[in-house]
Structure formats: C-alpha cells, structure tokens
C-alpha cells in the first residue's frame, strides 16, 4: 500500500505512544507466558524422554510389573523364546539415603546381558579390578549423581530399616543428565530385599519378529499384573500425567493473551473513534474503505508482530529464570531430578509469534470493520458521532447462545486426556460476559440514580448513554477478573478440600515410616512390634503400599493395604466403609473410578502376587495424593493373598497425655540413626500445604499478569477518551467545574467502568470456577472438591481493582485537567 501506510497508519501507532506501548506489552506478556510454559515443559519432557530411551537402549519391549516386583523365573522363560533375541533383567530400586532428602535410583543389572541391549548403562570401573562390576558392595554413579551427591568414595543407602554401605567403584560413561547408579543385579536383590524378584525385563526382539506379534505371543506367559509395553512407554505416561497441568498453565497464558487482544481492541477502537474525521477526510480524498480497513488491520498486525517478537525473547528469559529458580516442572513435582537445558525451539517460537500477530489483528478487526461505516459527510465535522460510536448494543440473544454453547461443551468427555470442552466453555463464558457488559452497565446505572451530586449525575448519564465505553474499557477487566476470581475460587476450594481431606486421612497422633512408599525403606513385623512396645503407644495401624497395573495401556495405580474401619478414616464420596456384601471389598479413588469406569457395587480384578483376585468396589474415596489413582484393600486380606507382611507407614495412637515428641525420641533410640521418618499430623499438613502453595505459585503469577493487562485496558481507554473529550471537559470548566471536579468525574467514570467490569467479571468468574472445578479438574486430575467461595479476598480484590482503576483513570486523563482543555472549546471547527 503506497506511502499512505507508514505515514497515516503506522505513524498513528507512534503518536499514541502509551496505548501502543501497553498493547505491545500485553501481547508480549501473553506470548511470553505461553511460550515459556511450552519451552520449559518441552525441555523437561525431552530430557525425560531422552533418559527413558537411554535406559531402554536397544530394547523393543519391556516387561513391567508391580513395584515389589515379580518372580525372576519369568526372565528365564522369556529369554528362551524364539521371538526374543536378547533379554536383560533389571531390579530397580529408589534407594533411601539416610540423612538426605529424596532417593537415589539404583538399577541392578546383569553386565553380561547389558551389552546386547543397553550398552549406555555399562559401568566403567576405576582402577584395575576386572570384576569390580560383580562385587556386591560396588555401585557405579552417573556424572549427574556424582555431582548431586558430592560422593566419590562411599554411599550409605537404606533397605528396610538397615543401612547398606556401598563403595563407589566407578561411573557410567553412557549416562550424562540422569541421577542414577547401577550395581550387580544379584547384589541389588540381596541388599534391597528383592531376592528372586525382578522389577523389569528389557527385551530385544529377534529379526523377523515385530512388537505386536511378540506382545501377542508373550503376554499369555506373564502372570497377572505383569505387562508388556513398548520400551519408551514411560515417557508417554509422564507426558500424559503432566499434560493436564501443562495444558492448565498454557490456558492461563492463553487467557492472558486473550486479555491482551481485548486491550488491542480497546486501544484500536478508541483510536478509530478519535480519527473519524481523519478517516472521513481520507475517504473524501478518494481512499477506498477497503484500503482503510487494510491499513487499520496492518496497524494491529504490526502491534502483534512487535509484541510477539518481544514476547518470544521474554519467553526464553523467563524459561531460563524458571529453570534456575523454580525447576523444570514449575513446582508441580512431575520431573524432579531432571536438569534439562534450554534449547531454541524454532517452530514453537514461530507459532507463538503468529499468535501475537493474530491477537493484534483480531483485536483490530471490530474497530476496523467499524471504520467501514464512517459517514463521510458527517465524519468531516469534528465531534460528530464520536460518542455515538460508543453506544454498544446489548445482544442478549447472542450472549444466551454462547451460554448455551458453554453448557453443552461442559457435557463433552475429555479429548486425549485434555478437557477441551471445558476450556472452550470457559472461552464461551468470557465472550458471554463481555457481551453482557452493556446490560450490566444499564442495570447498574438504573439502580444508582444520583439526585444531587453533579459529578455522579454526569458520570452515570454518560455511562447509561454510552455503554460502549464500558465495553471498550472493561473488556480486559472482565476477562482478567473472571480468570482471577475463577482461579481464586478453584484454588481456595481445592485448598480447603485438601485441608479437610488431611483431617480425614491423618487421624493418628504420630506417623512413622522408613521411606516414601516408592522407596527402599520398609518396616518388618519385628520393627512394628518394637515400635508398638514403646511406652506411650496405645495402638498401631500399618499401611503397605505397592503398585498394580489394572490395564496395560495405563500407568500403574497405587495399592494401599490397611485396616479399614470408622476409626481410621477414608474420605468417601460414594459407598461405605462397612461393606456387607459378598466378596472382598475394595475402595477405589475417584481417579480409578473415572479412568477405569468403575462404580460402587461393580467387580474389580486386582493382580496380587501374580494371581488375579476378585474384589467388589465398596466405596469411592477422595485421594489428592495419587493422580494415577489408588485402591485400598484390607491389610489382613492382602497378607493372606500375598504373604507380604512388610509395612511402609505406621500410624500410632498414643495413650492420653503422652507427648508425641517423647515417643518419637524413644522410637529413634531403637533404630539406626536417620533410618526412620517420624512426623506429627501438623507437620505433614504443613509440608503438604506448602507443596500445594508452591504448585500454584506460577498460577498466581500468571493471574497477576492478566489482571495487570486488564488495568492497562482501563488506562488506555481513559487516556484516549480524555483526549477525545477535551472540549467536553473544557466546556465543563467554563460552566464552573474545578480541576478537582474533573478529576472526580474521571475517577467516578473509571471506578464505575471498572465496577461494571468487576461485577460482570465476578459473575463470570463464578461460572468459570464451576467449569474449572466440575469439568476441567475432574477431567484433568479426576478428583472432586467442595465449592468454596473466598468472600473476603474476592471482595477486597474487586474493591481494590475499582479503586486502582479510578486512580488509573485520573492519571491517564490528566490532560483533561490541563489548561489546553479550556482552549479546546474553540478547537473543534
């Protein structure tokens, strides 16, 4: 488009420095947040996948079973099969390190089988000891493990409640980024109580045999609960497990970008209103309306492009900061122990850059379309029609259509584990809310009919007659308030539900464990007896944790064997603790009920000790700790079926007036130092809620950005309006209004506009919160929560935002109070 483009259109962006800068910033922040989330998780998933592939080496299939393993005879059976070219047995243990946080992953391997399948795991001994890899006390550490543990000579690990001293005999040259150690399989079995058991067998298939055929041939040989799966399936499971969290954060970023788009809309709309005479003049000179629209859309595209480019740069900076200070999982705990590196992602960067351009163009579309309707003759007269342009028509019919669409979308099942319907419903609700702003504005002005104050009268009269001003100024506020309120309600509901849940699942006075359920620590019946004998302990309740696979295509679920009775609570959402039907009862978590489509009264087959065992679903319980799901069965039944009497957690009830600290000290005296973790419920609650708050920290940050962008909308609108209305303010000064009166008028209009946005946003936020709780969370994480509205914080937030908007309006409209406004009464002709 000729020199007109830079001189008329792009020059306008330069003239409107504040509005252009805020629009750029809004788009940049939206793009930056979205891309940063993607970069961080792509890097984490990439590193996780690389680790999985490295460990799998050349394996085509893996045989995996419960955490406690399966009979090693299976290895010999499979190794002889014609479909199998090579098999490598593995014992994998998350070894607890007394006195340290976390565990060290130890792989017990057979070095003679390793070379054919997983050469990367081959240890390299220091010195001249040819048989170092077979020594029962030798462990080999990856470079990352050495760096993290600062160990070069010896390691102290824990098995059960006993200490295992190992010698660091060398390293694993083929493994770089993962924190792990390898040792001889026989030594690992002996030291970690896994004699005769394996946790995994890696298989390389014979030439001419493919995965599907081999799976069909070999699966019947496997005991119940042991499955064959592709060697890289764990990466897919991690992807699936963290996908909902990643999509949640991406959606938050998308809403920030959407708010940015609304800001572009506000800024461009007001720019078109202000430039009506300029456009009418251009049209009179012969410019076509299409060229005018193209010019305006180009303005939007340039805003989007520059904002998007800045956002892409910012995203890499944010991702680098997140890796350094928050971690690759953004605090959610999905990829702890990984150290991914930030890499340039050209496709994702280009996609987000385009999203920025899209936000700019989409935000400009409606204002550009409005420019097509400028009447040339009237537009040439200053002041003509500028306010008419702000008379927005309420479209309750269209709004109702979007509301209905939102309701229908909520009924859709998740798409590939992602609650796509829920997210689309949220978008529909936001559009509904913005469309209802004129209705809310009208309703509120009808409610408030000031009789005396001229400032209030003028403000309400203007907003009643020009509800479009409220739409333009508060579109961003509505979107950001709806988001912030919805997230506040969701997080508050979640936190309050977790709090109540902790009350239910932590009924004892003291908890003892040798390690996390997945770790190498456990208590033997002898240990339990020693603890029960400590003076002050009134009763004990033991819990055993294992994993079982209900379905080869899904991740394993946690099996919890414990006493189930009213004294040791299970927070049920369906069914009952007192099961009186026939068969053995099991209580499944909501995730198991959702993912495996089970309900109370239905049969459930659990693979225990290699045999399928039939249970009946007696109840469904709320479990916030295990996203893949869990099944609770009675421990006596578990012991009868498996013979496993080990214990992971021990809950203690103390005699009256006994200090938990004294009992804890007495128990520690009876065991090796640091082999037990002992905690009172208050400490567990504190740690749990701290983890909860850390997980939502990023969410709070993203909400704050969206609200900030919403306030930018108020600022740009009032900055533009104060310029457009200079002659009006000049006239009011002539009629006797003081500068302070004009400031009060602007503050009232700002507060009123934001108030309409806040009220509409809060109502939309309530609806969005319902969708988040009942649809998005339910489909993403498969847990329910009780709706909890944090009245005070939401009220304070809304009031604060209104006050802030009033201040922003005065600040942005300070030109209206200047002397030039007085002169503006003569500048209109």
């Amino acid at each position: 488009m000729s020199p007109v483009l830079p001189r008329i259109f792009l020059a306008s962006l330069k003239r409107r420095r504040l509005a252009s800068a805020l629009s750029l910033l809004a788009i940049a922040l939206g793009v930056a947040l979205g891309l940063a989330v993607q970069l961080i998780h792509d890097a984490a998933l990439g590193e996780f996948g690389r680790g999985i592939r490295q460990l799998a080496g050349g394996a085509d299939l893996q045989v995996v079973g419960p955490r406690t393993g399966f009979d090693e005879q299976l290895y010999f059976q499979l190794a002889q099969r014609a479909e199998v070219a090579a098999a490598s047995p593995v014992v994998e243990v998350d070894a607890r390190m007394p006195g340290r946080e976390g565990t060290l992953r130890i792989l017990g391997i057979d070095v003679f089988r390793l070379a054919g399948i997983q050469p990367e795991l081959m240890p390299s001994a220091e010195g001249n000891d040819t048989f170092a890899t077979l020594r029962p006390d030798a462990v080999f550490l990856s470079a990352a493990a050495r760096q993290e543990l600062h160990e070069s000579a010896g390691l102290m690990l824990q098995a059960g409640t006993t200490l295992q001293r190992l010698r660091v005999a060398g390293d694993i040259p083929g493994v770089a980024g993962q924190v792990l150690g390898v040792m001889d399989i026989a030594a690992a079995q002996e030291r970690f109580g896994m004699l005769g058991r394996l946790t995994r067998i890696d298989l390389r298939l014979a030439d001419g045999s493919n995965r599907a055929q081999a799976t069909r041939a070999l699966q019947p040989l496997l005991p119940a609960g042991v499955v064959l799966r592709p060697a890289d399936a764990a990466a897919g499971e991690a992807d699936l497990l963290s996908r909902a969290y990643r999509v949640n954060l991406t959606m938050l970023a998308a809403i920030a970008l959407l708010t940015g788009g609304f800001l572009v809309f506000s800024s461009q709309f007001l720019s078109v209103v202000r430039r009506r005479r300029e456009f009418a003049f251009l049209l009179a000179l012969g410019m076509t309306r299409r060229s005018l629209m193209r010019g305006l859309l180009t303005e939007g595209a340039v805003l989007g492009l520059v904002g998007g480019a800045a956002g892409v740069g910012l995203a890499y900076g944010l991702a680098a900061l997140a890796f350094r200070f928050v971690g690759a999982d953004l605090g959610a705990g999905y990829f702890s122990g990984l150290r991914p590196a930030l890499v340039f992602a050209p496709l994702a960067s280009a996609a987000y850059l385009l999203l920025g351009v899209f936000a700019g163009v989409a935000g400009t579309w409606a204002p550009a379309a409005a420019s097509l309707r400028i009447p040339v003759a009237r537009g040439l007269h200053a002041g003509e029609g500028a306010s008419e342009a702000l008379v927005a028509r309420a479209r309750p019919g269209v709004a109702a259509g979007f509301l209905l669409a939102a309701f229908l979308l909520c009924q859709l099942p998740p798409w590939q584990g992602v609650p796509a319907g829920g997210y689309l419903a949220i978008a529909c609700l936001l559009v509904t809310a913005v469309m209802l702003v004129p209705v809310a504005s009208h309703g509120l002005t009808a409610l408030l009919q000031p009789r005396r104050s001229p400032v209030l009268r003028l403000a309400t009269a203007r907003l009643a007659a020009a509800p479009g001003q409220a739409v333009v100024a508060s579109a961003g506020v509505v979107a950001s308030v709806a988001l912030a309120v919805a997230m506040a309600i969701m997080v508050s509901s979640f936190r309050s539900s977790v709090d109540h849940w902790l009350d239910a699942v932590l009924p004892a006075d003291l908890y003892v464990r040798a390690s996390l359920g997945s770790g190498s620590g456990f208590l033997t019946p002898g240990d339990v007896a020693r603890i029960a004998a400590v003076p002050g302990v009134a009763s004990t309740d033991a819990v055993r944790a294992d994993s079982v696979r209900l379905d080869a295509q899904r991740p394993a679920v946690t099996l919890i064997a414990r006493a189930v009775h009213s004294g040791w609570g299970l927070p049920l959402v369906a069914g009952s603790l007192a099961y009186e039907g026939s068969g053995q009862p099991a209580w499944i978590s909501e995730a198991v009920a959702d993912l495996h489509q089970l309900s109370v009264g239905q049969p459930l087959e659990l693979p225990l000790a290699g045999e399928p065992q039939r249970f009946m679903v007696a109840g469904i319980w709320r479990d916030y700790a295990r996203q893949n799901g869990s099944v609770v069965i009675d421990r006596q039944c578990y012991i009868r079926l498996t013979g496993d009497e080990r214990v992971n957690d021990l809950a203690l009830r103390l005699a009256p007036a006994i200090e938990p600290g004294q009992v804890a000290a007495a128990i520690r005296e009876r065991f090796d130092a640091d082999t037990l973790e002992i905690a009172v419920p208050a400490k567990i609650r504190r740690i749990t809620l701290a983890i909860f708050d850390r997980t939502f920290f990023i969410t709070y940050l993203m909400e704050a950005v969206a609200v900030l962008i919403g306030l930018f909308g108020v600022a740009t609108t009032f900055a533009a309006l104060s310029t457009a209305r200079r002659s009006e303010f000049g006239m009011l000064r002539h009629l006797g209004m003081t500068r302070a009166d004009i400031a009060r008028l602007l503050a009232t209009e700002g507060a009123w506009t934001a108030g309409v946005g806040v009220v509409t946003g809060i109502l939309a936020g309530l609806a969005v919160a319902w969708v988040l709780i009942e649809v998005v969370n339910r489909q993403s994480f498969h847990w329910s929560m009780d709706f909890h509205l944090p009245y005070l914080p939401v009220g304070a937030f809304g009031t604060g935002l209104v006050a802030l908007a009033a201040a922003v309006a005065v600040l942005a409209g300070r030109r209206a109070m200047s002397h030039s406004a007085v002169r503006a009464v003569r500048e209109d002709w």
Partner: protein
Amino acid sequence: MLEISRLSKRRPGDAERSLFRGLELRIAAGECVAVVGESGSGKSTLLNCLAGLEPVDDGELRLGGTTLTGLDDDAYARIRRERFGFVFQAFHILPHLTLAQNVALPLWLLQRPAAQAEREALAMLERVGLRDRAADWPAGLSGGEQQRVAIARALVHNPQLVLADEPTGNLDPARADDVLDLLLARIRDSGAAGILVTHSRRAAARCDRILRLSESGLLPADEG
C-alpha cells in the same frame, strides 16, 4: 454590572509584547456589547480572562460588586458556576445527555434539587422553543437547534454575565439572525450583562455597543 479596569495581558511566550493593555470597560445590566477585532487580537483570551480561565497580568475585574481578580482557581470556578453563562461557537452540547439534562447542567453544578432543576430546565426550553423535544438526544438536532439549547443552558441559572464566543459562527445567516435575536432578547430579559465576540458585522450590529479590541485597548468600532 461588569467593571474592567486597567486590564492587561501579555502574549503567551513573549513577555515583551502585550496582547492588550490597560483595558477599561463598564457594562450595565441588560446591556450587550460586541467585541470585534483581527484574528489573534486576543478576543477569546479576553473572554477567558474574564471567566478566570486564564490569569491576567494586571488590572481589576468586578462583577456585581464582587472583585474577581485575585480569586483562586476554585473560588473563581464557584463564581463561574453561579454568575456566568457561556455560549460557544461549536455548541458543546453533551451527546450523552438529553436536551433537558443539557440545559439543567448548570443547575446540577449548583446542586439544585433534581425536580427543581428539571422544572427550570423545561421552562427555559419553552422559552427557546424546544419544550416538546426536551427528552430527545442531541444527535438529531440541527446547528440552530443545538445553539438554542446552548443559549438555554447559558441562561437557565440567571447569570450576571453571559460570554458568547462566535455564537453564530457555525450557522447560516438566516438561522444566525434567529439565534442572535433569541440570545440578545434573553440576555436583556434576564437583566444580565453580555459580551459577544464575533467576526460578523451583521451580528455585532445587533448589540448595544461595538468595541474593537487591539493592543491599545477596547475602542468603539468606528474609532478603530
């Protein structure tokens, strides 16, 4: 009603040159004076100075016995609210207020009760011939009708001084005569003093006196 003594104003940004110097003027109640002059001679600045919207460099202003010079911004605003009426070339009718609300605006600023303000605004609209359109929005009004509303707004609170800056500048001659007749009649009826700044000889000729503004002062037009 209005007394101007030794009023001086320097050109903005040029302290050495005066826009006008030592102006002297007295206007009686019910009298309307036309001020003419070259473009840039300071006619509008004179109106702004009288209204307290621009500071004067020297001299004294008295309206209805009250000395206006030396008042602070807020006190002058209160005086403007109570005793001044304005008519502008570009009308400045607020598009988001009905005609009655536009006329009632000065009464709102004086905190008159809503019912009283409405009653007085309607009475004023009656006098300018627009009573039946009181509830209309300004969007469909012609230029002449808009200026009638502006005149009603300028006079609804019985000001002591009406300042009109090119009130007929946007109107065709026939409509300009009608509007001017109305404005002058209402000013005379109300007993206010009026100053009309205009380039139009035809408009000026309808006033009681015509004065020409120049650097040397306000002089009768035929002496200029």
